[in-house]
């Protein structure tokens, strides 16, 4: 409260004592008004209201007895639209997304969330004039982090935007032209507290693994730079410009490397890293697509010549798995279906004896 009074006094050019009196009177009056009248509307701020909470029944957790919570009154505050908008500015770009499928399953939700995350990242990066390859690199980790990722990323925007504003104030023309993952990561780490760091740590690790995977020998810059810069940015805002310059240099050094590396196809990612569910489902989709593409061609390019072995199906086996076992690829299952004259490829059950054909290329 004293802080507020001091800030208010400075802003209005009045003495601290006077501002103190005014602020006190302001909130006193709200209290009085609430007593007299049930609602108080202050334009540009919001509405204070006294609402009644009706009595309800509850159960004591320890004894299991039912008891009644008596009805009481409560002060509610609804912020004004203008105040809401100002406070919500960092998240203003989000719109309500209508989900198309009424019975949309979990997977779809995940995909949607991932999409939002991607959009977020892109917006961020667009605003900062990042080169194409960087954008892609930035969006891909976001996809890999399943459910928690969107939340983390969104949360992250707040400090980043603020940071950006500050930077703009201090160093108008020094815009962060060449931005890379390290720079994105650091302001966020600085401004938010523990949970944020923990959450973002995950993302950062993903990024780091990415970098490690594709740069192999040059994986050290990220972790090494980090501590220095955290210290730098934590110092007063005047120094922010310095640190930005520094990160810019660093990112320039790093940037060529990232450009050189080809952007990885999505399907490669899950196999090389034990990544979360979402990417797995994505890749499975991809796989199914490919399966659909290839199986038709493949069923035509081989001929079956005799029985290789007879296979008894066990509980957890699928056609693709059997195919993988004998031919080293999942794609050959249609041959097994054809050779065994199975009407329904989904009708595989435990104890079935399948003849595994020998395949010979037509060519």
């Amino acid at each position, binding site marked *: *409260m004293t*802080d*507020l009074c001091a*800030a*208010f006094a400075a*802003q*209005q050019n009045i003495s601290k004592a006077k501002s103190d*009196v*005014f*602020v006190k*009177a*302001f*909130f*006193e*009056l709200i*209290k*009085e*008004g609430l007593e*007299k*009248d049930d*609602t*108080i*509307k*202050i*334009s*540009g*701020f919001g509405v*204070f209201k*006294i609402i009644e909470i009706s009595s309800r029944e509850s159960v004591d957790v320890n004894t299991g007895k039912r008891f009644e919570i008596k009805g*009481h*009154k*409560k*002060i*509610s*505050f609804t*912020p004004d639209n203008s*105040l*809401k908008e*100002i*406070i*919500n*500015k960092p*998240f203003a770009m*989000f*719109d*309500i*997304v*209508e*989900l198309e499928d*009424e019975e*949309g399953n979990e997977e779809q*939700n995940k995909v*949607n*969330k991932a999409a939002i995350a991607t959009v977020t990242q892109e917006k961020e990066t667009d605003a900062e004039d990042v080169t194409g390859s960087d954008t892609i690199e930035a969006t891909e980790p976001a996809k890999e982090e399943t459910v928690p990722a*969107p*939340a983390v990323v*969104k*949360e992250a925007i*707040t400090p980043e935007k*603020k940071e950006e504003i500050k930077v703009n104030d201090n160093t108008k023309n020094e815009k962060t032209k060449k931005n890379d993952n390290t720079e994105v990561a650091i302001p966020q780490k600085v401004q938010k507290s523990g949970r944020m760091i923990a959450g973002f740590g995950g993302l950062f690790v993903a990024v780091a693994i990415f970098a490690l995977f594709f740069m192999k020998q040059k994986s050290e810059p990220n972790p090494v730079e980090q501590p220095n810069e955290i210290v730098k940015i934590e110092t007063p805002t005047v120094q922010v410009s310095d640190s930005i310059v520094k990160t810019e240099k660093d990112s320039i050094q790093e940037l060529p490397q990232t450009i050189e590396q080809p952007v990885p196809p999505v399907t490669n990612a899950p196999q090389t890293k034990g990544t979360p569910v979402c990417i797995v489902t994505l890749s499975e989709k991809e796989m199914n697509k490919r399966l659909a593409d290839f199986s038709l061609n493949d069923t035509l390019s081989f001929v079956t010549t005799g029985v290789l072995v007879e296979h008894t199906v066990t509980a957890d086996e699928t056609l693709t798995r059997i195919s993988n076992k004998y031919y080293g690829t999942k794609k050959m299952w249609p041959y097994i279906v054809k050779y065994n004259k199975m009407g329904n490829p989904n009708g595989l059950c435990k104890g079935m004896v399948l003849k595994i054909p020998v395949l010979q290329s037509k060519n």
Partner: protein
Amino acid sequence: MNNKDFINELSKKVSLSGKETEDMVNGLLATITERLQNDDTINISGFGAFEVKKKMERLSVNPKTGKRMLVPPKLTVVYKPSATLKDKYK
């Protein structure tokens, strides 16, 4: 009590003209908003605290059409009345 009444009462209280009071109120609100924007909590003893909180994204269903919507996360101002004030209305 609407905004006009509030300003009138306040002007009586601090013995300033209506116009002056209105300016002061606007100034005060601007200061508060600025503080909230910087993620500060505003504690006013005897009254309560204003705080910015993040609401998570959620799925909601339009009861009429049955359509599912993904409501984005947002930041909102939350007011917590002080213990004394709370007790008064209990």
